[in-house]
């Protein structure tokens, strides 16, 4: 008998997922569950994009592409950043097309983090930064963002965590799970702290197109002097409702993109060709389509925030992505308890805030990438649940 425990990599063996997996499996098995638990759009990819993918197959475009991605696609990505943000990236040197934004995140971390380097990670946040850092031999350093600060990263919080080992800052905004955003002024304050240091920045802007309120999204590389230290990660999953196509990209300085392309070449070869052809169509023709979906999310966002506030849960106003992050502290339950009981008693699936770091304790993540009817039914059940448990003497 092989004792796998002794043979496998302890680093990987000790990575999460841990207990939370059980809860997910339970949710998946339960019947007539209403879910607000999904991190992807409910929209189907716009037809013109799907059609472009199908057409590429009809034309026999079934081969590998260049390692960094089809040049016309990289060019369209650069055009998009020029058009929307007046930012300059060169298609040949500054772009790598990856298998989803997550591959880009993994590559960037692997290419810059050395053994013992510290990586600053504002939490709550998406789950991959920490394990990627650990696998690269780095040391993840959490920075706890707070509800009263609208889950923004404050410059003094950043300053307090910088040491001579700090290599990289992750900027996960607009944020999953909180829906928090960083305004241009917020980013400038962060840039002020970074100036004069050698700290690099991985700005995960996968939700950058989903911004609500008066101020639009600002890529971190747009802030003065930040371009040369920043890799921006974006992709097609959220904005174009293309999660299943697995296509993302990284934009950054030539040297880092070159290294990332090297690792990508060995691990992946090239991103899916069909998806790349579809993505060209997305960038060329779907600016309006994005806006339409964004305004639809905005309606739902206002509706769901209102709903949580009406049932007496405090809920800060998220201005990005498609999540709300209401506080359930008033029920006296922990996040996991709340989610488990809510699932058992009302058959509603939401995600405990602790899935996104310890600082998510006391919160739940609810996605509004659902129809208004679905949201309405879920809110009704959650309200029933909350009022029942408050009556039982929850604090």
């Amino acid at each position: 008998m092989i004792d796998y425990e002794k043979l496998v990599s302890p680093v990987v063996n000790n990575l999460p997922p841990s207990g939370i997996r059980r809860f997910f499996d339970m949710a998946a098995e339960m019947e007539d569950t209403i879910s607000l638990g999904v991190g992807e759009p409910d929209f189907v990819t716009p037809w013109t994009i799907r059609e472009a993918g199908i057409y590429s197959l009809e034309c026999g475009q079934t081969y590998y592409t260049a390692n960094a991605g089809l040049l016309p696609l990289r060019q369209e990505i650069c055009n998009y950043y020029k058009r929307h943000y007046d930012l300059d990236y060169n298609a040949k040197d500054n772009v790598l097309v990856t298998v989803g934004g997550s591959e880009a995140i993994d590559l960037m971390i692997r290419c810059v983090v050395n053994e013992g380097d510290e990586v600053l990670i504002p939490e709550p946040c998406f789950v991959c930064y920490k394990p990627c850092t650990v696998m690269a031999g780095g040391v993840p350093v959490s920075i706890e963002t707070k509800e009263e600060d609208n889950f923004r990263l404050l410059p003094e919080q950043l300053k307090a965590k910088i040491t001579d080992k700090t290599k990289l800052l992750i900027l996960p905004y607009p944020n999953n799970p909180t829906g928090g955003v960083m305004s241009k002024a917020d980013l400038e304050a962060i840039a002020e702290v970074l100036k004069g240091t050698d700290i690099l920045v991985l700005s995960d802007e996968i939700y950058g197109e989903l911004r609500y309120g008066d101020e639009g999204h600002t890529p971190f590389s747009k802030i003065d002097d930040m371009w040369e230290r920043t890799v921006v990660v974006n992709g097609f999953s959220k904005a174009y409702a293309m999660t299943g196509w697995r296509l993302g990209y990284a934009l950054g300085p030539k040297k880092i993109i070159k290294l990332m392309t090297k690792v990508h070449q060995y691990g992946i070869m090239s991103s899916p060709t069909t998806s790349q052809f579809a993505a060209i169509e997305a960038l060329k023709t779907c600016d309006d389509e994005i806006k339409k979906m964004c305004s639809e999310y905005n309606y739902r966002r206002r509706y769901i925030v209102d709903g949580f506030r009406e049932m007496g849960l405090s809920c800060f106003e998220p201005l990005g992505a498609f999540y709300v992050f209401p506080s359930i502290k008033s029920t006296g339950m922990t996040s996991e308890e709340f989610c488990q009981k809510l699932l058992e008693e009302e058959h509603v699936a939401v995600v405990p805030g602790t899935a996104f770091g310890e600082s998510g304790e006391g919160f739940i993540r609810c996605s509004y990438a659902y129809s208004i009817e679905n949201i309405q039914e879920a809110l009704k059940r959650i309200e029933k649940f909350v009022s029942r448990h408050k009556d039982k003497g929850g604090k």
Partner: protein
Amino acid sequence: MNEILKILDNENGKVSRTRIAQMLGIDKSEVDEKIEELEKQHIIVGYKTIVNWEKTDREVVDALIELKITPQRGEGFDKVARRIYKYPQVKSLFLMSGAYDLAVMIEGKTMREVALFVAQKLAPMESIMSTATHFVLKKYKEEGIVFEDDEKDTRQVITL
């Protein structure tokens, strides 16, 4: 105003005013006021339920009639159009560019009933030069709504 119209259009017009107010982050009284205004100005011209009659036992036949018209001096096509749309059988009426002038959507109980309507009411009108009747065999989509049953949400229950 346009935001309200967009929501009414998307949600089939059946969405409640309280919900519109929530979706736009404004007061319900403001929504009431604006919708009243839109109705008064005849920007909102009506509310209608879109029915897939095939799933009921009511027999319905739809047809598109192409009409070629001699326009009348001073009146253009409007006068004859008015005479046509007054028939309750006429569901829609459009003035078209191209090979014919008026497109009339007719609803009747049987093909014979529709054909008779065309022969007895439309064709004899003085300014109508010719008619061509096309019967609808199957409706796939109407007013932006697909008639086939909704596709199920096939996403995972939870993803991070």
